[in-house]
């Protein structure tokens, strides 16, 4: 019954997202939700390796950039004009990201300690940024690359991008849901709790981590390509941007790392907040300060994120209710410790 209710809520959310651009059709309104949806896909995808296994990658923006450069280069070299066909090329961004993820994951995951993994993933991001700057013949360096303009325009302009992001977000969340409820996902969660014990009970930890790393690269590559198409021009510093990683981790973290709902919630809180903050403070430095302070407050007050905190609170409230009821019917004071004996 609980599962049915969750399904119903998910259905309502998707319907609301479909209806939204027809109700609020201004460019600003659709752009904000477009970015939020894009980050739902990115953060949910990152969550497959970062949240489920606890291997926090700070270099997944590399896949975002790879996707972005893939669509720009393919469209340019094959002479594909702007149009709906380019969304198919965006899928190629995911494929390229996965191909790169194979050697990258192979090296980073050999390190065994999470600290080294984190740092090597940072190295990846900066390597790709430098490559994009330096391989002038391929990437045009700091002058960036143009992506063909779409052949629709006017008030309708945002719509196809919005729905592309929506489809990507829904599919990514479904993928994460499916993994989370599979045997494979169970192995990933076991790795997060205790990698040695997981290996001890027969989980092939290497294969699990490796697969999760590659899978998590795909939706992010596609998201990068969609972003590139949407913004029609890319630069090394905007698509291989460390801030993207920070936003991913913070979204996942804010909502609750390793939960399905967490990254969705996080992206929908963080993206609009970030855009409004930059809009109202004019990016002079106050936006960084406010963002950082917000960030610290959330981490120190809710170290496990919104979703786990709420779940824990409601669970405790239920226990308290049950205890009260038990007290009313059978007034035995020594029943209390047993009833409230959950981990604090």
């Amino acid at each position: 019954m609980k599962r049915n209710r969750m399904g119903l809520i998910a259905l309502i959310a998707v319907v609301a997202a479909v209806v939204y651009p027809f109700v609020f059709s201004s460019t600003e309104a659709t752009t904000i939700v477009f970015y939020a949806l894009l980050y739902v896909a990115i953060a949910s995808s990152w969550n497959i390796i970062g949240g489920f296994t606890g291997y926090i990658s700070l270099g997944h923006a590399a896949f975002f950039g790879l996707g972005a450069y893939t669509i720009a280069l393919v469209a340019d070299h094959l002479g594909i004009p702007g149009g709906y066909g380019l969304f198919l090329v965006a899928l190629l961004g995911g494929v390229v990201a996965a191909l790169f993820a194979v050697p990258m994951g192979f090296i980073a995951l050999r390190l065994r300690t999470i600290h080294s993994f984190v740092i090597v993933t940072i190295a990846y991001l900066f390597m790709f940024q430098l490559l994009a700057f330096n391989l002038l013949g391929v990437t045009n360096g700091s002058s960036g690359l143009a992506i063909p303009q779409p052949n629709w325009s006017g008030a309708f302009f945002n719509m196809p991008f919005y729905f592309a992001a929506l489809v990507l977000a829904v599919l990514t969340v479904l993928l994460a849901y499916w993994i989370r409820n599979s045997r494979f996902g169970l192995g990933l969660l076991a790795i997060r709790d205790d990698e040695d014990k997981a290996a001890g009970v027969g989980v092939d930890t290497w294969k699990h981590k490796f697969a999760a790393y590659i899978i998590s690269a795909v939706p992010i590559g596609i998201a990068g390509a969609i972003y590139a198409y949407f913004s029609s021009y890319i630069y090394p510093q905007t698509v291989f941007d460390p801030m993207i990683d920070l936003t991913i981790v913070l979204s996942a973290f804010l909502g609750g790392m390793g939960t399905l709902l967490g990254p969705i919630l996080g992206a929908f809180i963080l993206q609009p907040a970030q855009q409004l903050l930059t809009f109202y403070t004019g990016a002079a430095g106050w936006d960084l300060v406010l963002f950082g302070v917000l960030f610290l407050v959330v981490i120190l007050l809710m170290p496990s994120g919104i979703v786990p905190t709420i779940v824990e609170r409601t669970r405790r409230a239920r226990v308290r209710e049950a205890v009260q009821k038990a007290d009313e019917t059978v007034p035995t004071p020594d029943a209390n410790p047993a009833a409230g004996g959950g981990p604090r």
Partner: protein
Amino acid sequence: MNLVFGSVVLGILSGGIYALMAVGLTLSFGVLEVINIAQGMLVVVGAYLSFALESYWHIDPLLGLLITIPTLFLLGFGIEWAFLRPLKQDRVALSILVTYAVALILEGLMGLWFGDNFVAIHAWYVDAAINVFGLYIADIYLIGFALAIVLLGAVYLLLYRSKFGAALRATVQNREAAVLIGIDVQRISTLTFAIATGLTAAGGMLFGATTAFNANSMLDLISRLLMIIILGGMGSMGGALVASLIMLVSVDVVSVAYTPTWSTFVFFALTVVVMVVRPQGLFGAPPARKV
């Protein structure tokens, strides 16, 4: 040939400066098990402090260290006490996020105070150069290298010749056991982070005197410093020193013998290559298997 020799010398000298910036990172990792993403920003804060003292009150940057080191010591003390100590569970992830947030706040504040323009610290020894065997070397590099050796030597003595150092090393080896034999790990942690941050003030001054910087330089810096400590072996002080020298010499040689465009790439490529061969870094202990 002479050019390459010159770049090796320069690489060694600036390697010393980088070691001074990186040692704080490796110390706080060793003791607190925290990856301090704010380290790059703390270097920049140290540089801006020296810059402000020099340009507003005409205090010599070297003399100014008597002010900037204690200031950053207190800042480090505050950061550890307010933001790192409360983290109980999930320290790896949370410490990265918390120190990233601290870095962003400091970056924003520095940007507001000093603007976006690149600045550099000036002193007579920054612009003067001396002739060593036909090589012209700016005095600041020699002073910087000497200062780095003195301060790193002081840290070495503190670690290996004092009771505090013994307690600190015990904490690095085994946190739980250190608590059991009565070491106040909390106090050691706070002091270590404060000392690491204080040292960073000196690294920051030398960075600011050898490189033009602004608040945004922190990203560049932290990525390089992280590569240094992972190459050297995380938590190893000697490793940080050797890795700094290797890195900076390679960077300078590539920049002279090939092209400056690819010199920064060496930082990252070298690290990844070494990680393939030796995942624990040059001087790192192989990861112990937890029982």
